[in-house]
């Protein structure tokens, strides 16, 4: 067997795990590892400008590909800077391995230079974390980390590596384990057959059914199974913000997404349904509104790989723990074999009702002859990119507009921080995608508040020639904060106004990119086309949009699903 140092074993393990890119930033405790990295060229390292961005890059890559992302940082501040990124991935169940240097094991606990208890600091925001206690354990730990990160309900795994574990002068036998077995970790591999049968019987007997799909469908690579089942049944489907793209948005059975800023018809259909089939969704507070008033007439079937997601906030009548793809496949087979058919008459009158709701409101906004509306920018981008771009976003109004008006027909294309709501996510996430998808259009739809939270990454984009198109919906305010202040605080705009904004065009140029400013409506289309035509350049498009726009629909706080504001003055 080969003899390798801990650092070389770590890099070899990454190679054997099939890792192509890692994102990171060097520092004292990680220098042995960086030296091992230098002496090979299989694993490519992308140097960011702030560790948080490295994690979002790995995250964007993971969301677009379904493969775990990898991060490498040093101890202390390097490690603590990753925390927001790790928490972002944790809330959205994104598979990821974060390798952190640590001070030498002999120094741990002595408040050594750049020492932080990363095991303790990261514990509440990781799926699991592992610490290396002997260099020979490294291959097994790395194998375990990727296994845990990417199986069951995925999530980030941190590996803490004291510097002496990677010392170059000590060598050990290297072998990468083929298999991992953990007696205490056995994610479900199929759903309970009896429960699935019961669920299908209920589904076929329903009169006002609705399918409510979440990010779990995308993470579980079950879009095709879901689409087939939904089409076979002919039932309406809505999805969460995280589930966008799990079912084609352009399909007539699709009601748009649901919840706080969901469509009128999706929220109405949920509220009036008699059966909800929840697939890989978690009844989060941005979906349910007041839980005690949630969908009073509905019985609930809930499929999820994570038992803790079931009956956490809303009780399930039929819980099914298992991977969504396998469960949906079994459901489809049962539906096909069943002698029973959905009640055609009931379904027709249910659809008639839904079409009335759709006609009553649907997705719409008021246009203006001279002011650029953020929604129209998104609609235009959808048209100009044939609905086929990867779209990342930051957090706030622009995020909601992007999700509402860019109609995604494919999974893994809408990339946003849904659970944690991390401003500063969009640009680095887009970079992670642009790096590995050179032939695809990658848009970062952002706002002038969010983009400044990781603006330093324009430098990384220059180094690696990442042709992200940054679409800055600039309303000169923290728009969503301002909207809430308008609605709940009598328009007292406490600290939501962005004074002294930089000249984004000059800023982009200073980093070696192209900047385009759009402030006249007639320039919107030609200048967006111009930006999109620059295939190999990063273009920062700074668009002056309506400063007073609000996101609608918006659910009325503490109401039920159907209580919504449809505009500044219309409430239903």
């Amino acid at each position, binding site marked *: 067997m080969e003899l390798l140092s801990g650092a070389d074993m770590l890099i070899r393990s990454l190679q054997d795990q099939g890792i192509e890119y890692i994102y990171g930033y060097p520092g004292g405790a990680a220098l042995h590892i960086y030296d091992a990295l230098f002496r090979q060229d299989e694993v490519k390292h992308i140097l960011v400008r702030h560790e948080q961005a490295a994690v979002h890059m790995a995250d964007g890559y993971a969301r677009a590909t379904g493969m775990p992302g990898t991060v490498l940082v040093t101890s202390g501040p390097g490690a603590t800077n990753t925390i927001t990124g790790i928490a972002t991935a944790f809330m959205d169940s994104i598979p990821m391995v974060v390798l952190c240097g640590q001070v030498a094991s002999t120094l741990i606990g002595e408040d050594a230079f750049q020492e932080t208890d990363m095991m303790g600091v990261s514990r509440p925001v990781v799926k699991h974390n592992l*610490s290396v206690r002997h260099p020979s354990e490294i291959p097994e730990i790395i194998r375990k980390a990727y296994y845990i990160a990417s199986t069951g309900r995925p999530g980030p795994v941190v590996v803490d590596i004291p510097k002496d574990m990677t010392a170059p002068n000590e060598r050990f036998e290297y072998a990468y384990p083929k298999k991992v077995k953990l007696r205490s970790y056995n994610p479900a591999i199929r759903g309970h057959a009896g429960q699935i049968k019961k669920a299908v019987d209920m589904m076929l007997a329903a009169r006002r059914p609705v399918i409510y799909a979440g990010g779990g469908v995308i993470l579980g690579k079950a879009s095709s199974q879901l689409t087939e089942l939904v089409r076979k049944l002919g039932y309406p489907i809505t999805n969460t913000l995280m589930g966008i793209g799990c079912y084609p948005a352009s399909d007539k059975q699709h009601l748009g997404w649901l919840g706080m800023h969901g469509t009128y018809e999706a929220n109405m259909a949920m509220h009036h349904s008699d059966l909800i089939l929840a697939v890989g969704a978690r009844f989060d507070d941005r979906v349910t509104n007041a839980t005690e008033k949630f969908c009073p007439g509905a019985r609930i079937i809930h499929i999820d790989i994570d038992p803790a997601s079931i009956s956490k906030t809303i009780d399930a009548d039929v819980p099914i723990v298992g991977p969504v793809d396998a469960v949906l496949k079994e459901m489809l087979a049962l539906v096909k074999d069943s002698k029973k058919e959905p009640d055609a008459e009931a379904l027709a009158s249910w659809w008639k009702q839904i079409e009335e709701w759709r006609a009553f409101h649907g997705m719409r906004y008021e246009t203006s002859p001279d002011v650029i509306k953020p929604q129209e920018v998104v609609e235009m981008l959808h048209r100009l990119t044939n609905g086929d771009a990867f779209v990342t976003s930051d957090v706030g109004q622009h995020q909601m507009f992007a999700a509402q008006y860019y109609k995604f027909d494919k999974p893994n294309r809408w990339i946003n921080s849904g659970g944690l709501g991390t401003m500063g996510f969009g640009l680095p996430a887009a970079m992670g995608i642009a790096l590995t998808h050179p032939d695809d259009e990658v848009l970062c739809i952002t706002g002038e508040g969010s983009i400044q939270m990781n603006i330093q990454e324009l430098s990384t984009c220059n180094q690696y020639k990442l042709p992200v198109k940054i679409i800055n919906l600039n309303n000169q305010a923290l728009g969503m904060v301002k909207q809430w202040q308008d609605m709940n605080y009598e328009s007292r705009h406490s600290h939501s106004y962005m004074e002294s904004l930089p000249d984004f065009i000059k800023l982009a140029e200073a980093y070696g990119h192209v900047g385009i400013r759009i402030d006249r409506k007639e320039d919107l289309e030609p200048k967006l086309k111009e930006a999109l035509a620059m295939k190999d350049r990063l273009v920062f498009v700074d668009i002056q949009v309506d400063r007073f726009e609000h996101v609608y629909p918006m659910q009325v706080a503490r109401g039920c699903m159907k209580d919504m504001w449809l505009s500044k003055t219309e409430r239903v």
Partner: protein
Amino acid sequence: MRRIISVLLENEPGALSRVVGLFSQRNYNIETLTVAPTEDETLSRLTVTTTGPDRVIEQITKQLNKLVEVVKLVDLTEGPHIERELMLIKLKATGSQRAEIKRTVDIFRGQIVDVTSSVYTVQLAGASDKLDGFVQAIGTSGVLEVVRSGISGIARGEKVLSL
């Protein structure tokens, strides 16, 4: 309702902190907690008592099960079980108090495990309410120091919590 959840977890550094951290980060209540390695040294047995509505208890068991290092767990209060807590209590014992304390200790089936001219140290094991009863019977004025182990429990009959 009070619940006793008994957990087998990997005997690894940091495993206990994950369990304790879970309770604080999800706002669950811990009343008592005991932990020690089992006859299989790779496993620890942890017993936690908590209170909460059924929905919360269900979440606690699910969230505990989700921890990668938790191997198995059981809610002992779901079936017949035996629970015990150990108390060591130091009591002021002078003059006529000495005989009175001795009588009370015998009634509660405790033992005096250390004696000085003015102090008795009493050991008492049993369900938590028995220990409470003893302290009440003695009266708090005579109590110098109390240490309680927290609850350990085991299911009655054939049922076992093991690999």
